[in-house]
């Protein structure tokens, strides 16, 4: 297990380095950073001065390694727009995104696990098809569309929930539902297939033969084993949700990392864009690593393979 964990950790580190390189190159090759920073109406002299001032006239490789070295120490430089350290900006905005991500995942689990269980108990019934429909709709509908639908229904029409901002816990309900719904289909399908497999296994048949109550068989024996892979998947989904927060935080005006990324892109604030993309990618990589390790721990066949 230790050898497997080390292998996965090294692989995760390589992926993180690759992500950092891609992130750096995408930002630096997509446009002339100095021109973009100078803004509308800047003279060629101003642009040259900015290029020199920020060291953008040096080779890209030198710039990359310098940036990576600082980033490894938690120093992402200063925001070009807000003129404050990027690390401080990120620390300020991170809690909102974490609360949103956790709430969204909570909603996704609350909706998808019961649906998956019910669908597995009544395969090919109308309820199974309904669960499948909910899953398909969740996957097919763009997040911003669903967010606006929720907003108009619960905010504009019914006046039940606040539309934007993050002052109270009520402000997080609509964004969490909008974001969490996207994660529902994958978890529901995995729960359903896991339950179907487990329900047909020998130990469940034995449990039933022993005369155990149906609820006991279902929740104590079947569900516990069926949802084990879901835990791993949920960790990965949390990474997806953090990425999706760019859209949701912008739509609901939540002052989190996603909104910060949106602002930074709009203002050509490249140090912030690089930091946010790198951090969200790292969270995703770490979660994937944890999911892999959890799976390997639960299923020894994986570590042997």
């Amino acid at each position, binding site marked *: 297990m230790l050898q497997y964990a080390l292998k996965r950790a090294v692989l995760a580190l390589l992926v993180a380095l690759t992500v950092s390189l891609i992130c750096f190159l995408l930002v630096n090759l997509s446009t002339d950073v100095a021109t973009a920073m100078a803004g509308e109406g800047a003279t060629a002299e101003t642009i040259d001065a900015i290029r020199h001032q920020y060291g953008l006239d040096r080779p890209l490789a030198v710039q990359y390694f310098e940036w990576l070295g600082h980033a490894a120490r938690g120093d992402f430089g200063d925001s070009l727009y807000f003129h404050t350290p990027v690390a401080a900006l990120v620390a300020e905005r991170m809690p909102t995104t974490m609360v949103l991500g956790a709430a969204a995942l909570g909603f996704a689990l609350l909706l998808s696990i019961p649906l998956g269980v019910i669908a597995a108990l009544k395969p090919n019934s109308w309820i199974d098809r309904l669960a499948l429909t909910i899953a398909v709709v969740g996957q097919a509908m763009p997040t911003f569309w669903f967010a606006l639908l929720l907003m108009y229904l619960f905010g504009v029409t019914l006046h039940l929930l606040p*539309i934007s901002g993050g002052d109270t816990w009520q402000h997080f309900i609509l964004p969490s539902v909008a974001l969490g719904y996207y994660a529902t289909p994958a978890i529901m399908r995995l729960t359903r297939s896991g339950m179907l497999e487990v329900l047909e296994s020998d130990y469940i048949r034995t449990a039933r033969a022993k005369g155990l109550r149906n609820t006991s068989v279902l929740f104590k024996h079947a569900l516990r084993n069926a949802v084990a892979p879901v835990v791993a998947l949920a960790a990965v989904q949390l990474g997806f949700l953090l990425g999706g927060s760019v859209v949701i935080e912008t739509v609901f005006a939540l002052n989190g990392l996603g*909104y910060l990324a949106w602002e930074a892109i*709009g203002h050509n604030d490249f140090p912030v864009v690089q930091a946010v993309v790198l951090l969200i990618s790292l969270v995703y990589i770490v979660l994937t690593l944890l999911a892999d390790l959890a799976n390997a721990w639960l299923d020894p066949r994986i570590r042997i393979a």
Partner: protein
Amino acid sequence: MTSYRKLLRVTLLAAALAFTLPAEAGKRDNSIKWAANQVPESLDAYFNNVRIGVILAHYIWDTLVYRDPKTNEYKPSLATAWRWVDDKTLEFDLRHGVKFHNGEAFDADDVVYTLNFVSKPENKSTTQQNVNWIASAEKIDQFKVRIHLKKPFPAALEYLAGPVAIYPGKYYAKVGPKGMSEKPVGSGPYMVVENQPGRLVRMKRNPNYFKDSPKPQPQIETLELRLIPDQNTQTAELMAGGLDWIFNVPPDQAEQLKTVPTLRVKAGETMRVVFLTMASGDKTPTPILKDIRVRKAIIHAINRQAMLKTVVGESARMINTLCFPAQFGCTDEGAPRYDYNPAKAKALLAEAGYPNGFDIDLYAYRERPQTEAVIGYLRAVGIRANLRFMQYAAMRDAIREHKAGFAHQTWGSFSVNDVSAMTPVYFKFSADDVTRDQQVRDLLEAGDTSVKPEMRKVAYKNALKRIAEEAYVVPMYSLPVYYAYAKDLQFQPYPDEIPRFWESRWK
């Protein structure tokens, strides 16, 4: 994606209209709750360059002089009188009895400290173009100052009436730009009482606002600005009563909001003008545009009037020269008019040797539907324009590196009501000048450096006339902005896009 969101907006608005409750959240407590989609990096007026920052500055601070947005006349504000001592020196008599929000009394020291601080490049003001013409400010006595200019700059008063706000000197010296951003202190009609960066700015009416100010005494007690990036969310908040006023509403959405009984929608003209640049200089990447007949054919091919009605929106107007009509020195007198005449366009192309038209790349960075309409008109006369849509910075790079010869551009003049902030940007041999006409440059230079208004007007008129005669650009129109707000709120839009809530009240 754009059309998808457009369809969504229309559908949702239509569905929601029947159920919406009355708006006007602010009427109950005599406040205005409004929203912007930009986050200023700093509330210090000299350290941000976004529109909402420009707007907030007018609430928090005052300027030496005030330009009446209705008559465009300069009126006394913190200065009661002013005069040109020579081509490079302006003298101001300052008002007595004005107090800043923190109780500091206003006098010459405040003007001198503010202007000397912000005009020094080492202090890194973000809006250098607003202050880099100032050499220094000098105290003559407690209520008299002189501003020394680096060179003759006739638009100085325009800047002193707009972006050049006066700060309390002692406070600014103590807290600097960072402190001023966190806790802004000015003499303006509203005081900042709460500032949550990136989220909210709350302002209260200044009860001690000086009574002779050209800005009327404010009637609205509280202004609450929320920063909401998504336009659809702003609209939803407005319809739900969470906001009382929003701006920059897309035209299609504005049409829908007009049907909401609790709301009012108004279109206002802005100083941003739209035009097509046609590189005809020696380094042009599109030599075909060196032929004046081709350039004239392009202008004749585009139905600008029809575009105004269909894709631009209300309150905009067609322009015949490259400037905003209300700007000092802007005129189309004597300049040729190019009517919409596709037959003439085709004839001109045939005369130039292109009876079957030609292919050309058209660069653009905003107002895409308008660019697409232009492409449609050009195709109708045989000019096959290929859209190259990109970020502004990328487009400007392409123009400056002589890779883009034909571009759909806009310019807002930084809301400066003087031609010197518009036409010279594209015709005074800067990197953005793709024509490089010596005669035009000399005329503009004469207009930019003379302090005699009549001489300036003549110089600008001749420059604009030559640009139009040579068909160097396609002047299109001014751009409108749509405002949507609670119907019981009195609100008047102005071309400088500054909402003047100090003039507003609830009915």
